């Protein structure tokens, strides 16, 4: 009783105050503005980052763009043949491995989990397992690649080769593909599925004709995001042995013979390499910045495409 009266009194007082008050809500304004400031700080950092990188790399990118994209690794930063061609080739092949291995496996697992999986412990365990895999640090995948693909399966992968790196990164992004594809498949309206069954479709016909087309944009968004994660990842590559300095020749994009050769480079790794070289030869910092711009163009374009796709389809479906 006493408590109720107390609350009643307080409410009463607040109401009277509220009706007498004319000034604006200062505390509320301050709160809102400080929230906006935190958001703007993040955006400001992003802005500074891009401006900083582009300014550092500007000289190389505008001075000799073709030479930089077609050039190779050199020991001096002012070598006119310095460039990222080997790294582009390596990253291209890593992307191929990710697309060929992680996409089908991930989408298949997502279809099974959403449409076929029985509601039992085993299915729940597999789901939990995939969520946990998504949280495993990338360096641990690197350790797996180092022991399994570089050491034990040397005969198949060729040791510290682009094949080892590609498979390792495909494993790394697999859980992301599964989780995003699962979300897309879960969003398919039940009515569509029942309609397909109603006209006599088997389960697989139903999935192929209704679920997959409807979920396709969502699945594509997920694959794009995981691809951009894959091509930007450096830590596992350092472990499975992206090596520098002794890249014999500059092979073309489609030299299949090199896949299990013991020397490769990739965009994120060449950046690390040049950042470390900048200690003895400061010119390498500019080269690293230019390589970052090249990598960022790929990553941001892929991400922007994914975000645009998702927003576009979200809007259309209300």
């Amino acid at each position, binding site marked *: 009783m006493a408590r109720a009266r107390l609350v009643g009194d307080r409410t009463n007082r607040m*109401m009277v105050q*509220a009706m007498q008050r004319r000034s604006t*809500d200062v*505390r509320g304004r301050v*709160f*809102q503005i400080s*929230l906006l400031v*935190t*958001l703007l*700080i*993040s*955006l400001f950092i*992003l802005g500074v*980052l891009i401006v900083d990188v582009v300014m*550092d790399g500007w000289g190389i990118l505008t001075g000799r763009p073709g030479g930089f994209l077609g050039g190779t690794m050199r020991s001096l930063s002012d070598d006119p043949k310095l460039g990222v061609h080997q790294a582009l080739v390596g990253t291209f092949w890593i992307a191929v491995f990710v697309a060929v291995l992680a996409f*089908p496996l*991930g989408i*298949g*697992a997502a279809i*099974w989990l959403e449409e*076929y999986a029985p509601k039992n412990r085993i299915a729940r*365990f*597999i789901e*939990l*397992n995939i*969520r*946990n*895999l998504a*949280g*495993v*640090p*990338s*360096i*641990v995948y*690197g*350790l*797996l690649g180092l022991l399994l693909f570089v050491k034990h399966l040397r005969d198949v992968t060729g040791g*510290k080769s682009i094949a080892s790196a590609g498979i390792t990164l495909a*494993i790394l992004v*697999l859980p992301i593909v599964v989780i995003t594809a699962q979300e897309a498949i879960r969003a398919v309206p039940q009515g569509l599925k029942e309609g397909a069954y109603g006209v006599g479709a*088997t*389960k*697989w016909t139903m999935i192929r004709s209704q679920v997959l087309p409807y979920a396709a944009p969502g699945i594509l968004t997920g694959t794009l995001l995981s691809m*951009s994660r894959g091509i*930007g*990842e450096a*830590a596992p590559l*350092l*472990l499975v*042995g992206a*090596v520098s300095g002794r890249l014999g020749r500059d092979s073309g994009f489609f030299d299949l013979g090199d896949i299990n050769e013991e020397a490769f480079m990739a965009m*994120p790794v060449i950046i*690390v390499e040049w950042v470390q070289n900048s200690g003895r030869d400061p010119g390498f910092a500019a080269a*690293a910045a230019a390589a*970052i711009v090249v990598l*960022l163009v790929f*990553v*941001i374009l892929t991400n*922007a495409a994914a*975000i645009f796709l998702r927003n576009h389809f979200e809007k259309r479906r209300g």
Partner: protein
Amino acid sequence: MAVSNTGVDAAGDFSVESLTANPRQARKERLIRDSLGATALVSVLISALIIWSLFSEAWTFIVEVDWGSVWDIGWFPRRGIYDIKTLIVASLIVTGIAMMVAGPLGLGAAIYLSEYARPGVRKTLKPILEILAGIPSVVLGFFALQWIAPNLVASLFGGPAAGSLLAAGIGVGVLVVPLVASISEDAMKAVPMALREASSGLGARKVMTTMRVVLPAAVSGLMAAFIVAISRALGETMIVFMAGGAAQTAVYTHSAREGSLTMTAGITSLARGTDNVVGEGLTFQSLFFVGLVLFVLTFALNLVADRFVYKVREQY
């Protein structure tokens, strides 16, 4: 009587067979189901392989190492000194600094996007935050070393212009801001509108509604956001490797202004550079020992975070 493929006999009557699929099709359906199930099992295989690879090598280390060398003056793996506390303390320092940066920034951005931003503003700001989330960590490593260290750390805190744990921590913080923001925003969006309306109906202002109603209701999700971010910061490699201010070896330190090696940076700097990891007998195995410690820590954090997320789903 001959039953055709469609299950309808010549006279056009339905039979029992017309309700069961023909065996060829049933076989195809089963085959598809089983192969999809097999793709789902690949993830279990991967987990098993990760655990096997960490344990098998780490076990050799645990059995054979002289434990005095695991509690020593620093991390000099090639000379047989594997002081794990150097690495763990450095990891904790970096993670702590990262959360001091990402906690307020991420939570503030999330509250603004979820409670205050008008739809138009939200639609432009959110994608930009998502772009920030997609920036590779090597890029932030470069940024931490070339910009944060000389401009922020050196001028504000009087630290060195070269890499340090502080510079790396701030870099990691920037990396996890979008993560904190997006999970926190999801948690706040899941709070039912009715709670906000009830609060406004009682005369509470927006600040009061946000602080006293929405945030407490979303607390499990916010906890999950922070735990996931901590786990991510512990596992982040490239930023600390590039901007952490130490290469190959590190003497024990608990000062953020100095350079040191975190668990992840310790693994990376030992494993790269040479063709094979050479040195004292157990150098190769020490990689997996550190990896195992890291794996167990992040795994436990992720499990806890998962429980919090589950709780949110249960409530609303």
